[in-house]
């Protein structure tokens, strides 16, 4: 197991280097000029332009810029935002708590609503709840998040619930409930369907029949034997989705005015703030890789047939 983890961690190095190169290149080739509009109505004075270019290394060739960036990266220095003049690490640190809260609310929705709905639908296959889950998840999957977000805000305001569930965010838990639910809704739908499908399949499995043949009542045959197998894909899916959610949600954060990592990325693209953009995306890449590893290790524990030798 230890060997497996070490191997996987080593494999992350080339992945990470590849990702840095691609993202850096994309940010470098982004059209536009970080100095445009920087000095109000007038163009910036030449000495400021020269200082800016040399401070951020923009006067050097692309490959040199990249290598310098990599060098800083290994000392934990993500650079300084050319828009706010704060370090990128600081920009991320003040936003990550909000993004984590949002991700946590979405994941809780997945586990509580998604898994429960999937289990009920799977056990009562062909029943009313099953039909309800199948149709409602399809609707949620089909509606884009910006429509769902707007509709939910409209509904909250229409019924004067804004004081209980705010439609815009100030970073508090309560103000993140609505965006969290909207953000999680798509994952909830997928988890519900995944859980249902796996449960339906496992209820027909031979080993469930064996469980009955051993004299078990349905509570144990389904609740322990079928469920233990059916929930493996759901658990790993939830884990993977947590990795994705921790990368921030650009659209959802914009709709609900949340100052999270998604908003930071959106802003840095708009302001041609390449340093912040590359730094933020790289942190997301690392988080995603680590979460994927955690999920894979978890899978080995949940399903003994998956060996990590």
């Amino acid at each position: 197991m230890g060997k497996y983890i070490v191997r996987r961690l080593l494999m992350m190095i080339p992945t990470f280097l590849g990702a840095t190169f691609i993202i850096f290149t994309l940010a470098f080739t982004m059209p536009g000029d970080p100095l445009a509009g920087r000095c109000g109505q007038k163009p910036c004075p030449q000495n400021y332009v020269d200082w800016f270019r040399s401070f951020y290394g923009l006067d050097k060739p692309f490959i040199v810029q990249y290598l310098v960036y990599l060098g800083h990266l290994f000392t934990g220095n993500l650079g300084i935002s050319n828009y706010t003049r704060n370090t990128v690490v600081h920009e991320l640190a003040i936003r990550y708590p909000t993004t984590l809260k949002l991700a946590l609310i979405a994941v809780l929705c997945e586990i509580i609503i998604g898994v429960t709905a999937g289990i009920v639908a799977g056990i009562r296959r062909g029943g009313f709840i099953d039909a309800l889950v199948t149709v409602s998840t399809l609707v949620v999957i089909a509606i884009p998040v910006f429509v769902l977000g707007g509709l939910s805000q409209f509904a909250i305001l229409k019924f004067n619930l804004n004081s209980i569930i705010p439609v815009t965010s100030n970073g508090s838990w309560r103000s993140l409930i609505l965006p969290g639910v909207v953000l999680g809704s798509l994952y909830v739908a997928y988890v519900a369907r995944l859980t249902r499908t796996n449960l339906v399949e496992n209820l027909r499995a031979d080993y469930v029949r064996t469980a009955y043949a051993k004299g078990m009542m349905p509570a144990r045959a389904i609740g322990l034997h079928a469920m233990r197998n059916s929930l493996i894909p759901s658990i790993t899916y939830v884990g993977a989705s947590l990795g994705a959610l921790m990368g921030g949600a650009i659209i959802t954060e914009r709709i609900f005015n949340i100052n999270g990592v998604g908003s930071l990325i959106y802003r840095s693209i708009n302001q041609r703030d390449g340093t912040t953009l590359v730094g933020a995306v790289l942190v997301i890449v690392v988080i995603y890789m680590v979460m994927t590893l955690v999920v894979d290790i978890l899978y080995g524990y949940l399903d003994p047939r998956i060996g990590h030798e």
Partner: protein
Amino acid sequence: MADYDHLLDVRDLHVEFRMRTGIAKAINGVSFYLDEKETLAILGESGSGKSVTAQAIMGILDSPPGFVTGGEVLFQGVDMLKMSRKQRAAMRGPKISMIFQDALSALNPVFPVGWQIAEMFRIHHKTNSSDAMKAAISLMEQVRIPAARQRFKAYPHQFSGGMRQRIMIAMAIALDPWILIADEPTTALDVTVQAQIMALLKELQDEHDMGLILITHDLGVVANVADRIAVMYAGRLVETAPVVDVYGQPRHPYTIGLLESVPRLDTKLGGVLPAIGGLPPNLLAMPSGCPFNPRCRFAVDQCRQGTPPPLESLDAKGTRFAACWRVADTAVVDWRVDEPVPDERVDDMGVDDEIGGWL
């Protein structure tokens, strides 16, 4: 002590599967019995209702779509079909247990095998986990799993096919049942392992004084192990008799066909092995008359119309039964159709050797 005729008495069992495409009558009035320590083999091709019968007796039919629509299943004189679900579940394990064809899928892949055996004690006797573990290890030793103590925590996929079936058997005999139903226990195994598993089953049957219902389509296995045979076709019992009688003179044309299609030492090499022509009937569209009539070389008009022939006694002792209008004619059929040809066999063996060398 016993106020019942047979250990297990199945009377006029009917099972149907209610599906969107229609109602499939999978079992149509099957009656048979099993005495203590006896081995009954239920024979028949796929879809004849062997496994469904076993599942109906166990009470583990997939329901829906399967429903027991009539009959009685008497265990020591008590009709299990009239029991509550809870009473029925309590029977499975201590009274009747079952092993399945494919032990890999029949064992839960995510629990250690020892745990799965120990579970029998934990659910039926509420045994604490360390006692259940000890009992499970001793069962694993009883079915001769090498290094049982070390393998207690191993998972089903870490065992070979034969060892997995041994685990299944250990689980089934854990609570010392009266009856063990073995649903094609050796079909998924290779030939040498098949023999070991059958020998083990036989040995455990003697040790535990169990009745054994062996569901199979392997006539070779049946001849060595069974006391009596029940042959099923299209959800009906077509012939039942002591095993020596069936092999001596099968009386139902379907049984004759089955025996003819078994390769024997004296089967002429290079010849065509006889097979029963046609296919088993579709349960949703049964032929009128005897269900076997479209494939039967004895069929006459009487077989093609009206109701299927009833299972009738063929001898005064009341041990032989067949469901055929033409039992009078099948009594004189010599089912060993081809003559033994010892000289030719020697020649043919030579040819085989040549081919072997050439390859």
